[in-house]
């Protein structure tokens, strides 16, 4: 070991040097304080022995200077002193020394002390080495996370979350906290949103986000209902996630055509539907186990529906907000959440107000990055111009000349949604892609009319007030589960024309029909809410046959006339 000895007494210094050299150390000698400082810089010794009393800089001063100015790893300083006052010895330690030895120096004691310090130096080097290794690994991990984040963000992208009817708060690294926020436009107008919270942290929490968002975007564009999508998502997560990792989720459909919101909350904190007209807040509680726990056979989705207009807003949160803690480990809590929402009912941006309140509440306590908050107002009805620019202009392809028909009876009417199937089959004809939203709307309006008003015999006049609205959807859901007779036959005939094609939708149901003439004469106001005027607007012709039990709608499309 390299040792520096600084002592102005030549004899003492030479004797000690010889002793230490005999123990196998490499010794450098300094004749006074100034010499000690320059030799220290020159030779970088592992240990320094300093005489306290020296001309020029004394031992204390040398110790302070080399400890302060050295950027080197830690090294011990042992003072050599003939002083015996306790306060003088204490001063050695205050000046940055690590130990002291009394003069005259005892060979055995100095050897023992140097040996002890050598052990500490070795320990120090081991720790420093390990710390460097950990630092390296940590940096590596952060780099990996950054790379993973980019991949995850591409797959679990946020869709149309930047739309102007949405305010949200989501940390950029939230995916590694298991928080996921997705938004997509519904094919028939409106929006679907999902706020998901996977248990755990880091990669295990992020893994589930991949299948979840793929299913979300894949099935939403194809027109699948929340129920079908959540069944698929649960099945996938149940098979992919290890037991003990699960996903709390809120999924919301806002149908801007029917001015209706459909929501399902599985394991997440309450969501809040705000009516700015009546200045009230309705709480939507969790009604199911989180995703990934229940086996597919036992899994069941029961959505709730509410009227939702330009006067409404919905707020959804994950437990990060509710559980945000202040310096006394007190939680923000649901009460504070609700009262803050009530205070800001009229605010344009409740999200901002809530985050500010959480900020104030937490004070100096560091906030974790799992504070996720979503605020959505009514989305304007825009027919999508999907794939307009990237659309494949190849010759008429796929099912351009075909009849697709499906007859659903009894229980299947309640269990199966035929719209995605029709849509997917029809869209194998690429030229129809720009018309997707319109076709979806026409088909689902026609099918829902046949099912609701035909088979189930529900009267849409019920939907005129908000109690009736809830009642209507409750009756509909109940009707569908109890259904074991009745039918709807759906057939879509697509054949090419000179410049495009012609789609004829033909639906027959087992209901009692209706007074077609009267309804049409009444300006179609009272029939199926906003449905009929919309159908008349989108289709080239609509004809009711067999006393209202059968409907034929024609939709003509043209290569040169792509919908806006």
């Amino acid at each position, binding site marked *: 070991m390299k040792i520096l000895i600084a002592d102005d007494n030549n004899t003492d210094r030479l004797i000690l040097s010889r002793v230490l050299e005999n123990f196998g150390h490499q010794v450098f000698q300094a004749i006074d304080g100034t010499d000690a400082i320059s030799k220290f810089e020159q030779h970088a010794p592992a240990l320094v022995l300093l005489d306290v009393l020296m001309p020029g800089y004394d031992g204390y001063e040398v110790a302070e200077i080399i400890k302060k100015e050295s950027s080197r790893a830690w090294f011990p300083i042992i003072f050599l002193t003939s002083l015996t006052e306790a306060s003088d010895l204490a001063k050695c330690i205050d000046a940055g020394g690590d130990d002291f030895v009394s003069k005259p120096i005892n060979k055995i004691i100095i050897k023992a002390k140097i040996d002890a310090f050598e052990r500490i130096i070795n320990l120090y080097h081991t720790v420093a080495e390990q710390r460097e290794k950990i630092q390296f690994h940590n940096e590596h991990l952060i780099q990996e996370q950054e790379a993973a984040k980019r991949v995850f963000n591409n797959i679990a992208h946020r869709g149309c979350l930047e739309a102007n009817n949405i305010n949200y708060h989501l940390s950029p690294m939230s995916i590694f906290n298991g928080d996921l926020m997705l938004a997509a436009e519904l094919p028939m107008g409106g929006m679907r949103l999902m706020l998901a*919270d996977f*248990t*755990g942290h880091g990669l295990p929490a992020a893994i589930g986000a991949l299948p979840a968002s793929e299913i979300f975007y894949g099935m939403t564009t194809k027109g699948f209902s929340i129920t079908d999508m959540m069944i698929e998502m649960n099945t996938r997560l149940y098979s992919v996630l290890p*037991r*003990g*990792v*699960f996903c*709390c989720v809120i999924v919301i459909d806002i149908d801007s055509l029917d001015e209706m919101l459909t929501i399902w909350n*599985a*394991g*997440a*904190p309450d969501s809040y539907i705000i009516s700015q007209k009546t200045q009230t807040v309705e709480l939507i*509680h*969790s*009604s*199911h*186990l*989180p995703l990934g*726990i*229940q*086996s597919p056979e036992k899994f069941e989705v029961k959505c709730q529906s509410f009227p939702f207009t330009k006067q409404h807003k919905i707020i959804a949160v994950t*437990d990060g907000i509710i*559980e945000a803690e202040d310096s006394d480990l007190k939680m923000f809590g649901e009460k504070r959440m609700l009262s803050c929402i009530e205070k800001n009912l009229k605010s344009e941006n409740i999200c901002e107000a809530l985050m500010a309140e959480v900020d104030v509440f937490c004070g100096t306590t560091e906030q974790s990055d799992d504070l996720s908050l979503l605020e959505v107002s009514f989305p304007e009805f825009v027919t999508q111009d999907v794939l307009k620019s990237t659309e494949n202009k190849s010759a008429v392809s796929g099912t351009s000349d075909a009849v697709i028909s499906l007859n659903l009876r009894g229980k299947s009417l309640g269990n199966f949604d035929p719209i995605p199937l029709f849509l997917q089959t029809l869209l194998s004809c690429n030229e129809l892609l720009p018309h997707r939203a319109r076709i979806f709307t026409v088909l689902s309006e026609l099918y829902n009319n046949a099912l609701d008003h035909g088979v189930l015999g529900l009267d849409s006049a019920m939907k005129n007030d908000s109690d009736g609205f809830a009642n209507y959807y409750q009756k509909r859901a109940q009707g569908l589960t109890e259904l074991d007779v009745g039918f709807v036959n759906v057939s879509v005939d697509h054949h090419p024309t000179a410049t495009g094609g012609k789609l004829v939708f033909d639906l027959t149901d087992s209901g009692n029909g209706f007074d077609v003439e009267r309804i049409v004469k009444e300006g179609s106001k009272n029939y199926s809410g906003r449905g009929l005027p919309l159908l008349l607007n989108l289709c080239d012709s609509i004809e009711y046959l067999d006393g209202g039990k059968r409907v034929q709608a024609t939709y003509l499309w043209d290569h040169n006339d792509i919908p806006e």
Partner: protein
Amino acid sequence: MAVTSVTSADGKSLTISIEGRFDFSAHQAFRGAYEKVSPIPAEIAVDMSGTTYLDSSALGMLLLLRDHSGGDSSNISLKGCNEDIRKILTISNFEQLFKIH
């Protein structure tokens, strides 16, 4: 946080008690409490009368216990839950999987 477990004299039931915060830091201890008992008793009680806080990783641990003791055929009761804990269990609808007292 402290996790203790007691098997009844006849070996038919196991009680696991959690004191303080039930979160990820309890993971090893909680797992140890039931994995060291073999065969696993048919009846399991998790005593939470001394538990002050429960987070989602604790919910995950409860699911692991449920799986370990037979999944759908398991018989696990969660006892002595305070109001906050009961609330968290209710939000997640865990009453479908556990008996909550």
